[in-house]
């Protein structure tokens, strides 16, 4: 009951955040985003035809009227049609978000779980060779551009110039074997890069925790290292870990993974979002921005509830 009340309060208090985010984003879209008029015109347009297209796009309406329409669309979940393809935005997102989720989920989970394990190991062997090895690997992961990693992994694992054991691109998923086939190389690339950032972050959290009195006491009482790291350190590190993990989720759900989707030919939401940004497809952009704001409010709520779950001292008041 306490959690439910808290959730309702939090959701209500999230409304100003959603209004703020959508207002600023819409302002940027309207005044600084691409003007789609000129992409929808034929080769020798007359001023009348330009006016017609602007009218069709709703560009001739006052800003506040357009913003009010936007809020109504969000509230009713009637997100309109894409200006580019004509497809219903709700159908478009419903079709592409699950694909992106399936694509990024393994990399997201592995990238975090492995990073936490490596961070515990590095912190435990702080300043010794395992720590240096892991941190060196992290720096490499952080230093190489994601794009380079994708291209290199595609050449190594998928192309005829390399091992050629996975498809270069595509998404014909009918079984788990297909899924594994298509997701393996993108996942390896994602994990390679994510491990760098995640391991460094989690290591610093763990190192700080290792200096706490209760850890020193447990160590003095002869707690075995594995038990010490799991019971006394990891559990107490969960709050920053949860914060990082949960707040990554909205971006994963809505933004997808543009580069991976483009290079591996995966029909996810990342490419849809990117195309909408570059072409100024406002119905799609409005939906993506609105849903991202809502997801962040939900992530904030979920984070607070998880804080309470891992640390009963945390109050939901």
């Amino acid at each position, binding site marked *: 009951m306490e959690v439910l009340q808290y959730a309702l309060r939090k959701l209500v208090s999230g409304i100003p955040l959603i209004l703020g985010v959508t207002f600023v984003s819409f302002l940027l879209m309207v005044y600084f985003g691409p003007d789609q008029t000129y992409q929808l015109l034929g080769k020798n347009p007359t*001023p009348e035809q330009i006016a017609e297209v602007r009218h069709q796009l709703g560009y001739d309406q006052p800003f506040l009227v357009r913003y009010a329409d936007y809020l109504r669309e969000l509230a009713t979940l009637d997100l309109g049609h894409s200006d580019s393809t*004509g497809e219903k935005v709700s159908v478009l997102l419903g079709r592409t978000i699950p694909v992106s989720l399936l694509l990024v989920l393994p990399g997201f989970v592995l990238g975090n779980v492995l990073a936490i394990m490596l961070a515990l190991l590095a912190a435990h062997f702080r300043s010794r060779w395992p720590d240096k090895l892991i941190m060196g690997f992290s720096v490499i992961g952080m230093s190489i551009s994601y794009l380079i990693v994708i291209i290199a992994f595609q050449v190594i694992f998928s192309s005829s110039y390399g091992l050629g054991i996975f498809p270069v691109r595509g998404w014909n998923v009918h079984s788990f074997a297909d899924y594994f086939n298509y997701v393996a190389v993108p996942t390896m690339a994602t994990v390679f890069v994510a491990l760098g950032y995640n391991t460094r972050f989690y290591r610093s959290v763990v190192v700080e925790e290792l200096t706490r009195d209760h850890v020193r006491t447990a160590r003095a009482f002869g707690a075995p290292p594995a038990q010490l790291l799991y019971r006394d350190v990891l559990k107490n590190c969960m709050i920053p870990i949860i914060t990082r993990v949960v707040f990554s989720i909205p971006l994963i759900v809505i933004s997808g993974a543009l580069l991976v989707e483009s290079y591996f030919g995966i029909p996810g939401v990342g490419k849809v979002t990117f195309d909408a940004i570059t072409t100024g497809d406002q119905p799609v952009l409005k939906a993506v921005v609105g849903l991202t704001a809502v997801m962040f409010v939900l992530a904030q709520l979920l984070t607070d509830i998880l804080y309470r779950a891992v640390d009963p001292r945390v109050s939901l008041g």
Partner: protein
Amino acid sequence: MPQVSKLWARRRLAATIALVGLAILTGCGAERDARTSAPPTAEGRALKVYRHGMDESPTSLDPVQGSNVYANHVLINAYDTLFAYKYLARPYEIKPNLADGWPTISEDKLTYTIRIKPGVHYVDDPAFPGGTGRELVAADIVYSLKRHFDPATRAQGAWLWQDRIVGLDEWKSAGSDYDAEVEGLRALDRYTLRIKLTQPYPQLLDTLAQGYASVVPREAVEHYGREFAIHPVGSGPFRVVSYDTTRIVMDRNPDYRQEPVDLAAEGYDPATQGGYGLERIAGRSPPFIDRLEIHFIGENSARWNSFTKGDEIQYTQVPNEQVDQVLASKQPVRLRPEYAELYHVYAGTEAGFIFQTFNLSMPEFGYNPDPERERRNKALRCAVIKAFDWPARNESFYAGIGQVFPGIIVPVVPEFDPGLSRESVTRDVEGARRLLAENGWNAENLPVFTYGTVAGVINRLMYEQFRAGLKQIGYPPKKVVLKQYATFGDISKAWKQAELPWVVKGWGLDYPDAENTLQLYYGPNGSPGSNDANYHNPEYDRLYEQARVMLPSPERTQIYRRMNRMVIDDCLAVTGMARTRIYLWHKDVIALPDREIVGGFFLKYVDLEG
């Protein structure tokens, strides 16, 4: 006990997560399977699937918005057009397609009566009563062309017929009521169409071969509404079964009319096209493949990896960065042996060109109230043109295989003049310096030169090369300013609003007639039209108006060439280069790919070995 129940709770949670994941996975797979499944072949053989690689995706599959070659690759294969381009004839030649022979043309060249083939049916679709595709009739063509004049459709092809067909513009002004008759566009009976023109229009048949002229059924447009743009319902050789941002899947239309290929009529030339196995399609009716997949792969490396993998896409245009690795010789284009063993190659000159033009509405470079300044401006423009280094541009960005030519009549059209002086495309630094000095230009009084481009590494390098060229004629580099735009839409807006003094552009021919590029300098087409130069020359306009109603003839060619000369003499543009495109396709594919003019009309004729 509490420990045990906790354990069970965790296991239940894990099992639930796994089940949900599996459900998403299998659900997703099942949906895709249904969307992409093709009926098994009657002969029980394996499906013939051809996978085509394309560097961009179409934005809309509604014919009224089919504004580029990417959309046309789909449109003209999903829909029928009255006319089409011959598969193999070069220069390009038009032929009847849905039209049952050539039209009857009145003496005054103003009335075209076109018979269409009876018995052509749309593919089955829920839009039709009972889901069975009905017969295509002449009224569908009337409806399809009218859609371009309906503001609600956001049509982009109206410019092809604007002011050309009697009553069509008035029909639009009166509210675009589809049930209202248009005098110049009538279905005389089920199979006869009559088009009445306001003035002779020699390119009319070419316009009726465009993706824009695809014939659509009204029921489908009304059934799908705005989503008609992702649900093509046509009578073409293929039907669309699925479409997303990465590919489109089209299955053979089993009811497509039987029209055996006559290779000679299609323009087959054994001397130049003899090595591709095309003889094997002679006498057979297309389409020959069961499934056509077009994969949209913008990234060159991914497209190349997919093509060379062997079991993915079977066709690609060779990216510039691969040209040296793949070719043993550029002139003529010849593959290295290891590639020649695996792939067919074809090198073709693009039907279009790249050029850079001054915007004469800017008083700094163009028309000026002061006649003396206007004269000096012309000298300045001529100096800039002399400073441009075409060979360097070609070598740096187009693998050195582009075809540089003077003027705006491109090499693929019959009116091209190979004997035209190449002075305007020959670098002359000393001449440029002399021109500037003789006309009173110096580092202090030269105007700021704003070079607009879409943000990107290649574009930035092009700008740097251009600026370096100007520096050599004494143009201070700090006065050559780069203005970057985030998207093509943004720079397109700047061009249409005549905000930039210099327009860097490519132009793809809509039809193989020099009129299509000469209209780029026709006065009434000034901004926001395609005359980005805002060139207004009464003599040029008069010649254009005279030639636009003439049928192809030596006299018309002479007029075209006079206009071309004016563009060169008035120093309007750094022009031009037609890029050479090199296509590779797997040896088991029987085809002669070509993405020029309309785009993708060869796909209907693709076959596979075995």
